[in-house]
């Protein structure tokens, strides 16, 4: 399947576009999506370990399944947030 991923801030700037399309095996998890995004967009590879993934406006962990058509986004660390991004914030699935 092919999923569309929204990009923001430095990630958007690196790629030069507000979203990317990534090919994934089926079924796929958020972890698979991270790996595939890094392979298909090498300019994101260094940023990916520090970014959170949001699916349908919620932060999600790498084990969560990705469904075609979901709203997916890569979330760079926010401005006061190094600590929060070291351990996933409350509400992370």
């Amino acid at each position, binding site marked *: 399947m092919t999923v569309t991923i929204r990009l*923001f*801030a430095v990630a958007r700037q690196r790629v030069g576009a507000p979203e990317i399309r990534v090919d994934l095996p089926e079924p796929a998890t958020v972890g698979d999506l991270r790996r595939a995004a890094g392979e298909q967009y090498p300019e994101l590879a260094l940023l990916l370990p520090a970014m959170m993934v949001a699916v349908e*406006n919620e932060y999600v962990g790498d084990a969560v399944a990705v469904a075609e058509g979901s709203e997916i986004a890569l979330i*760079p660390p*926010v401005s*006061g947030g190094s600590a929060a991004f070291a351990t996933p*914030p409350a509400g992370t699935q």
Partner: protein
Amino acid sequence: MIAITDQPIDHAAVTDRVRSTRAGAVCTFLGTTREFTGGRTTNHLDYEAYPGMAERTLEDLEAQARQRWDLIEVAVVHRVGRVELGEISVVVAVSSPHRVAAFEACQWLMDTIKQVVPIWKKEIWADGTEEWVHPGLGPESGQAGP
């Protein structure tokens, strides 16, 4: 009340929105664009939000704050786009019957907003260089180029 806006924020209106005869205490926080950071001079800031998720995350934080403290009203307004020196990027206002709850909830909201709400800040320095502020990514990773 949660809002994201690309217009200047009227902080007095946000504070007045949480005032109530049930409240003995109102605490308001303003984040404003600071000219000097370390040895560097800022020209202006540029904020970008993930529309939808930013509001949803703020609403979730308001609900969490209302569970933790005895609050009457909560208002958070965050600006996006270009924010000049001295202008307001964010206002958090809370009211409570008692002052300790008002202070604690306002500070917790502000701290947590800066950790989990998908809104990003780009520094445009006076020397013309730009830099996304992404703690943990390191200065090189965050550099936006001239």
